[in-house]
């Protein structure tokens, strides 16, 4: 069977949240000599992005999105093992701190972002909601994080994202971490204005932006 067919089946398995099919595709692809990383990035990852898009349009619901993310996570761990067994150098994955800023208790969107980013094999330390800038920075130091991601749903709490940038600079830690932000009132213009490294409009874009930040 061709690589393209495996990729097509991999995408389908995620869209159908079908764990059995996903594992079967991956096993057959590896047995056929395909590169598991390629099947993961062009097949399964494309599938999870499509599920994310469908969720954004109200055609797929949260339970299904979570099921798809769970299948994706299992596939990612299989690929990690395959790569490790071959002794290949793995792509840098990294650790990300994620929090809804202080004063804001909205975390449905952040939970979705966490689930999708985890599927890429990135370790997520989710600090929850209503988290102070000091606690975010302390966690980043404790877990030796690569990225700090913050979410703010309210215009009144958006300022916490700016505060994070300022305190990181004051403490001389700004260059140690990449920062990414999101939430309804946030924009690329806001990210540029406060000096954040990236902005993501939704969870699917968040995955791409985080991967791009880690590759820098």
């Amino acid at each position, binding site marked *: 069977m061709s690589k393209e067919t495996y990729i097509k089946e991999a995408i389908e398995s995620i869209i159908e949240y079908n764990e059995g099919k996903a594992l079967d595709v991956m096993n057959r692809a590896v047995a056929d000599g395909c590169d598991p990383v390629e099947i993961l990035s062009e097949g399964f990852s494309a599938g999870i992005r499509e599920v994310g898009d469908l969720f954004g*349009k*109200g*055609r*797929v*619901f*949260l*339970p*299904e999105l*979570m*099921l798809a993310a*769970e299948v994706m996570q299992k596939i990612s761990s299989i690929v990690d093992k395959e790569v490790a067994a071959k002794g290949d150098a793995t792509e840098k994955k990294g650790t990300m701190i994620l929090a809804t800023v202080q004063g804001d208790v909205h*975390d*449905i969107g952040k*939970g979705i972002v*966490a*689930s999708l980013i985890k599927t890429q094999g990135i370790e997520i330390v989710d600090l929850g909601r209503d988290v102070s800038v000091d606690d975010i920075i302390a966690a980043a130091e404790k877990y030796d994080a690569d990225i700090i991601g913050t979410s703010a749903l309210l*215009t*009144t709490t958006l300022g916490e994202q700016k505060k994070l940038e300022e305190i990181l600079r004051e403490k001389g830690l700004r260059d140690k971490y990449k920062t990414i932000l999101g939430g*309804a*009132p*946030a*924009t*690329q*213009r*806001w990210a540029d204005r406060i000096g954040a490294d990236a902005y993501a*409009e939704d969870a699917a874009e968040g995955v791409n932006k985080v991967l791009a930040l880690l590759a820098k």
Partner: protein
Amino acid sequence: MDKILTRYGDNYIAELTPEEIRADIEDGTADAADRAQIPPLSKDEMDYLYEIITCPQKIVSVVPGKEVVVSFDAGTLKLSVRNGIPLDRLQAILTQERALASDSIELCHVDYSYKPIKPIISEERQAMEQAQLLTTLPVLYGAMPNMGLYTKPDGPCENWAELLPAGKIPEARAAQEEAIEHAIRDIVFVASGMIESGADGINFDTVGASGDADVKASLEAVRILKAKYPTTGFEVGMAGEFNLGMHGQLAFDDEIIAGLYPHQQVKMAERAGVSIFGMAINTNSSMSLAWNLARVVTFAKATVAVAEIPVHANVGMGVGGVPLSIIPSADAVSRVDKALIEIGGVDGL
């Protein structure tokens, strides 16, 4: 080429060329049409929207005769709480009636959810009775169904927002089904008390904020209340442009609730006995006013076309094309109103 001063969805100035504005209008209407599977705006409608957006005057207004009525959510929170003016609620209501020329007003509590009103229902009823004695305009009572308040530690049910990411989907669904029963009971209790105290109507605000269970609880409550109080008006304002599927399988009269867009939400609302439907289309803060407004008007037109009850467009901050800012610019707000009424055909704001 001359640039036109307009706004982004975050309220900041955008200087765009006529071509960029036209392109944004086309993209915006196409996006709404694709998402909700509804017709896009016609060329004439897009041309008129372009005229509204590029009109050189700072403020625009509807053509005389096209005026509509205005309803409020968070009614008595606006002056007394958000603006920080030391007025009690009755003073705020009379200010709305006599100084701000409001067509209606909503009495509400600072803890704007049905559940916390239960223990203070007597005080709320007394405030409604006093307001009714002194006012001419319709005074509704309102709050949000806010299903999140029924999850631990604030309530008795397991927290589905924690169960879902853990893959415990049957448990998450069961928790939501349990919460629906609590919410219906509380909403019916509070609304009944307020109607008994003279409320002209009951407002359900931000319905669906906690997902499809939130919608189910609200519509079931409206159905019970409408049977109990057939001459009372019920206004239901939605939380977003489609019903978020936190459960995914909940139905109202055998129709799945999750994923419904405004033109479908309104038909379900009619069946429940809703008198006024409030459509809510989120403003994208990254995109231009032209893009946002083209989208909103496309949704509005499709909704009004099928609705048999009045449709009010939610035009609070960050909704309906109004910029997402606590101080949205009047130039953008006035264009939103004109476009929604004259192209979208809405019955109120």
